[in-house]
């Protein structure tokens, strides 16, 4: 019967070669840089884990890390439920309208992030932004400087992600919902389930793998969000560093302060956190309720 042999690996070799060249090599190089001092001026010198040790006492780093965690959590909690809700609405839209709505929903996800970021600027700008002139002020509320006011910067960033990904996530949820065999719902209905109970006991649990995928995808994109934050906040952390994320901190450290070693360390330090979070989410998506556990 089939023996494991060399040819499969040989056939896969080009892929791994490209992967190594464009992914592993830069990764290793980054790791190397993160262990250097004096990276921009003077002779780089190997400093071991010194850059990482420095981060432990760096208040701005801690601030950026906290901001990132809060911001990622807010994005997940805003986008996922909202998309799930929209997906449910979309199911009841008439067929002829559906194609058009799908297109509209996908559009923000397909637009280049930089273009989107400029659009955000139009929306979030304090004195002249659309959000203020179309929604906030007509409601009789004082205009908010979404980009400069430290209380609102994080919300602007969350809104930005909400705008960008809700459509795409909605379609993911929609296909997930439509993939649930109708027989489960029929059975639940004849067992006496109300619409809400069916959502709670049939749709939600059966959507779990889809939800996990959506969450992982969203987390990754949120974590590495750069363009949006860069354009919105001009590459800084915004007023009082209220919008300082790990990515923007790495950028500031490298290109404003010229400290590539520390910047690389900032980037690498986030890797384990991100990986653990991603694995946790994906593992949750694959696991089923354990027998005997209340579901």
């Amino acid at each position, binding site marked *: 019967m089939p023996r494991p042999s060399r040819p499969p690996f040989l056939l896969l070799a080009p892929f791994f070669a490209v992967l190594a060249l464009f992914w592993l090599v830069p990764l290793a190089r980054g790791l190397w840089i993160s262990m250097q001092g004096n990276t921009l001026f003077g002779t780089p010198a190997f400093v071991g884990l010194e850059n990482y040790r420095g981060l432990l006492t760096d208040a701005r780093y801690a601030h950026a890390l906290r901001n990132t965690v809060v911001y990622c959590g807010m994005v997940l909690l805003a986008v996922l439920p909202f998309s799930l809700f929209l997906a449910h609405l979309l199911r009841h839209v008439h067929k002829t309208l559906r194609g058009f709505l799908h297109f509209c929903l996908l559009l923000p996800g397909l637009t280049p992030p930089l273009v989107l970021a400029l659009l955000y600027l139009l929306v979030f700008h304090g004195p002249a932004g659309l959000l203020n002139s179309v929604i906030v002020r007509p409601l009789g509320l004082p205009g908010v400087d979404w980009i400069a006011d430290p209380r609102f910067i994080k919300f602007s960033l969350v809104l930005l992600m909400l705008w960008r990904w809700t459509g795409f996530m909605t379609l993911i949820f929609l296909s997930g919902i439509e993939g649930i*065999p109708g*027989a*489960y719902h*029929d*059975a*639940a*209905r*004849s*067992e*006496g*389930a*109300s619409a809400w*109970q069916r959502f709670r*006991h*049939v749709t939600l*649990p*059966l959507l*779990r793998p889809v939800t996990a995928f959506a969450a992982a995808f969203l987390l990754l994109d949120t974590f590495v969000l750069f363009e949006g934050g860069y354009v919105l906040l001009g590459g800084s952390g915004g007023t009082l560093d209220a919008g300082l994320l790990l990515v923007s901190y790495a950028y500031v450290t490298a290109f404003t302060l010229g400290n590539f070693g520390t910047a690389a360390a900032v980037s690498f330090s986030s890797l384990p956190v991100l990986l653990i979070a991603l694995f946790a989410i994906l593992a949750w998506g694959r696991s*089923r*309720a354990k*027998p*005997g556990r*209340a*579901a």
Partner: protein
Amino acid sequence: MAAFSIRNLEKRYPGAPVPALRDFSLEVGSGELVAIVGPSGCGKSTLLRMLAGLEAETAGEIRLGERVLTGLPPKDRDLALMFQSYTLLPHLSVEENLAFGLKLRGEPRPSRLEKARAIAKTLGIESLLRRLPSEISGGERQRAALGRAILRSPAAFLFDEPLSSLDAQMRLQLRVEIQRLHQRVRVPMLFVTHDQGEALTLGDRVVVLDRGVMQQVASPEELYRRPANAFVASFIGAPGMNLFKGRIETNENGSARFVSPALSYDLTPAQTAAIKPHTAITVGLRPEHLRRADASEALLRGEVTAVERQAGQATLYVQSGDVSFAARVGEDFSARPGDFSGWTFDPAAVSLFAGPGETRIDL
């Protein structure tokens, strides 16, 4: 306990030229099991889904005892529906699936799980309580689904081909289980199936549906012996009744004779009296009513085209010109495909069908 009463039920799908179900009326007594059988697309599943409230009827009324079910959502109908496909929720253990209906009603966990365990015991699945549906066999899943249905003590049971996706052995076991339930629980039960054998074994009465129209409702005996029309005759039985289309001619002595390409015979006096001469008519003959005969006295002749052996007997398929028919013989028969065979029968045993709907002529 309350009886099911279905009056003039109709289902029309938008855009469909003919209704999926037309003017369907049926009473199902409490403690009665009525099997509904018909080819695919006959409207039997639609009927059941309307009873369960999963689909809205176009016209008609459904009552369960004093309660009018028409217009009620499924959750307020207090019926149990068991499906062909496996509908245990995949993320819940067997135990939790069994107790699902009670959970929806807010019954506390210890009491509902206790009931689940009790029902699992009577169904012989108590060792599977902690397993997930994906970890048990199809038969066990359907057993659990049956348990889930029983657990709520519903006012009626609806079965939508629950045995169709099981292997023969499992099907037999679960059929017995359903019969036991039927003995124990005195509520109306409706059992939809495309398998006429299943319908005849399970049903106290059997409804035959075709293209949305009820063809006959009768006891299995009656259905088999006195089919109401040619469709029922050919649908019930395995294989169904042999049908020969022909005409009634008059013999020189005044008696009537049935004439068709494959089969001709003299009608009995009773048959003669019931039929007008020179009319088109269909003669039905059960395979077991045919007997081997010598060439001299054979009423039917043909070439054996296939032999199907069953336990203790065999079915021969015989071709006579354009007409083919089946004959049941004992296992001591000697015939092979290609053999020429002659057949005779007792003229009193035939069924006669005439008219536009090929309805039965009662003698």
